[in-house]
């Protein structure tokens, strides 16, 4: 990794980082007295207002890979990535809010006990919902898969951002005082955020994580918007930006994504978006902590409304970064009162081989890595971090670096709290200690938090040793979340779906994902974790196309297998499904005029998102 100029943190930069650290830990310390039961710790007492749940969901969804990835997508694929990220997620978020949250949320037995129907119990997690709706084996299978995925995901997030912190020399001062070797700096950059997350989650549970995710969302806007505005001014405004973006990335038909627009729309919008926003407990836990079902429905809708802005603020830095001139080693000679000065600006070769502010990947000697086509392989993940260095003066730079740190920790905290809840409810209580007193549940949840952070750090260390693990994250997502999305859809909307069907669907979907990945290899790649490790049968156009294809196949196989097996197995009685399928759940009664209802809000948000996407295409 190469950066443009090694920044030295000025006093105000460090001060802003310290202020953020203080407020982050404050959330933990001030909620500590409230952590009296496992419900308080794992579900934030189910007292959160809808807007906070919405901001927390959004914060949880913007971890380090998403923050770096959106800038990278902007740099790599151009304007069309706005449509990809906005239309890929917003319909799924609105769907989750309107139709899935009433089913997942169930009834809040403490807050509205009068409305509670006999037999209606509230699930604390997605695996627990699967247990209530289907059976124990489906719950156990999903709990184990989810726990593994969340720990692995948190580890990859730590490593991905740790690399950036090392390239930006954020922790160099600390590392120098400790006399650490170069790998020690990376370990420190991964261990310090992990330790901070551990402290505030142990103290304040899900509540502290949600407070910090809401903070994180506001910081993203506050920290990155000035950079975007300055960058736009530098490049000559909107028309200047359009002029610098290469023509082929402006036209979706010819852009190098290569997946084809139809596949893109269907695959991204339906499967990836749905598998994230309708399925992933790392995000849904925030909405399930809402104070009532209305707030739980509103949370994803609020998140969807704000998502449009976030996507623009995160993708524009990548677009601007490739549009700017590439730095070159230069000698400027100027004459000052008869004295001739030679000002030499030395730019590392990997930066010179890059495109705009996006550097090429560097090998161990600092030389740019060349791809098979003779072009340098670009390190797109550095687009947003390099923009921070390029445009933010001392002071605002501290705020920008705070955003990177906050996104890393918000994502890791979401993984750790959901890992702890799933382990405690769906593995410990469900199978190991069925009648555990709540005191032990609370203790177990805390120990599971420690375990989750340790596992995540282990995964980060593994990723440090085997770089290619970074590419495995899409595969893990396709194996775990895409089949689960199919099973949850069937479970929530089709009464006939059975436990055996769901179990078979999850296994078949995961197997299909692994097989597809093993049998196809993106162009210009060597067989390995990127694909083709069984045999190479077909060549998708890019790694993104492969990821989309794998997820879609896993979803379809899971849907078909689950439906087929369900038809041949015994259906559950209607009474057993009370509150667990949409047609048998308490419909939120329509309050107020039609334009105040969530459905109307959702329609307005969807139209706005389509309008914004059209501007960018």
């Amino acid at each position, binding site marked *: 990794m190469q950066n443009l100029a090694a920044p030295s943190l000025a006093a*105000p930069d460090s001060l802003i980082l310290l*202020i953020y650290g203080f*407020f982050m830990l404050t959330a933990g310390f001030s909620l500590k007295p409230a952590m009296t039961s496992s419900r308080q710790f794992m579900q934030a007492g189910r007292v959160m207002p809808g807007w*906070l749940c919405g901001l927390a969901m959004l914060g949880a969804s913007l971890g380090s890979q998403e923050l770096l990835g959106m800038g990278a997508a902007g740099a790599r694929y151009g304007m069309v990535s706005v449509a990809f990220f906005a239309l890929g997620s917003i319909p799924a978020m609105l769907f989750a809010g309107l139709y899935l949250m009433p089913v997942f949320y169930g009834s809040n037995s403490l807050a509205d006990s009068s409305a509670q129907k006999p037999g209606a119990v509230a699930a604390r997690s997605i695996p627990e919902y699967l247990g209530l709706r289907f059976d124990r084996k489906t719950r156990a299978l999903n709990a184990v898969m989810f726990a593994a995925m969340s720990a692995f995901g948190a580890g990859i997030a730590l490593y991905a951002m740790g690399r950036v912190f090392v390239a930006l020399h954020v922790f160099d001062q600390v590392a120098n005082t400790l006399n650490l070797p170069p790998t020690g700096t990376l370990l420190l950059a991964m261990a310090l955020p992990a330790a901070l997350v551990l402290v505030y989650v142990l103290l304040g549970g899900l509540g502290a994580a949600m*407070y910090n995710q*809401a*903070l994180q969302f506001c910081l993203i806007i506050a920290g990155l918007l*000035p950079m975007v505005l300055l960058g736009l001014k530098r490049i000559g405004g909107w028309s200047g930006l359009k002029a610098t973006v290469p023509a082929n990335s402006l036209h979706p038909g010819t852009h190098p994504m290569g997946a084809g627009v139809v596949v893109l729309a269907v695959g991204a919008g339906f499967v990836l978006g749905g598998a994230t926003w309708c399925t992933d407990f790392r995000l849904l836990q925030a909405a399930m902590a809402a104070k009532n079902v209305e707030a739980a429905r509103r949370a994803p809708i609020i998140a969807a409304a704000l998502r449009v802005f976030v996507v623009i603020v995160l993708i524009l830095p990548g677009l601007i970064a490739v549009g700017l001139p590439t730095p070159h080693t230069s000698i400027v000679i100027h004459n000052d009162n008869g004295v001739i000065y030679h000002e030499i600006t030395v730019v590392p070769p990997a930066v010179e081989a890059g495109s705009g502010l996006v550097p090429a990947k560097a090998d161990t000697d600092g030389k740019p890595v060349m791809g098979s086509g003779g072009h340098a392989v670009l390190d797109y993940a550095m687009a947003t971090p390099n923009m921070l260095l390029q445009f933010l*003066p001392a002071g*605002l730079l501290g705020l920008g670096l705070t955003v990177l740190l906050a996104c890393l920790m918000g994502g890791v905290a979401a993984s750790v709290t959901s890992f702890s809840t799933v382990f405690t409810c769906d593995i410990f209580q469900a199978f190991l200690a069925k009648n555990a007193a709540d005191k032990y549940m609370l203790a177990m949840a805390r120990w599971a938090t420690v375990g989750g952070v340790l596992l995540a750090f282990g995964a980060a260390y593994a990723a440090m040793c085997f770089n290619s693990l970074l590419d495995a994250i899409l595969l893990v997502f396709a194996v775990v979340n895409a089949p689960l999305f199919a099973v949850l859809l069937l479970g929530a909307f089709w009464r006939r779906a059975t436990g055996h069907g769901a179990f078979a669907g999850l296994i078949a979907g995961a197997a299909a994902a692994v097989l597809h990945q093993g049998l196809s290899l993106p162009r210009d790649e060597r067989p390995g974790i990127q694909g083709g490790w069984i045999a190479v049968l077909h060549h998708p156009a890019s790694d993104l196309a492969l990821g989309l294809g794998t997820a879609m196949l896993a979803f379809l196989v899971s849907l078909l297998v689950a439906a087929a097996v369900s038809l041949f197995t015994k259906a559950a009685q209607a009474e057993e499904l009370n509150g667990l399928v949409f047609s048998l759940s308490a419909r939120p009664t329509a309050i107020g005029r039609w334009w105040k209802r969530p459905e109307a809000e959702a329609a307005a948000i969807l139209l706005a998102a389509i309008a914004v996407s059209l501007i960018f295409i």
Partner: protein
Amino acid sequence: MFYDPRISLGMLFTLVGTVLTAFGLATRSNPDVYAKSMGIDANLWWGLVLLVFGILVLTLGRRGQMKQENIEK
């Protein structure tokens, strides 16, 4: 029990806004600091924006907290 989250949010942005505004005022006549931002004193202007935002959110949060405490009484 769970305090109004807008209070900590407002306090954070008020503090950060103050730091940025103060630093922006102190370095206003130093063009070296603002070479990156094309001569614009970005710290001062953005610091003021954040300061206003922070105070606004803090006020709303304190109002919400008082309302909540009245209900609990």
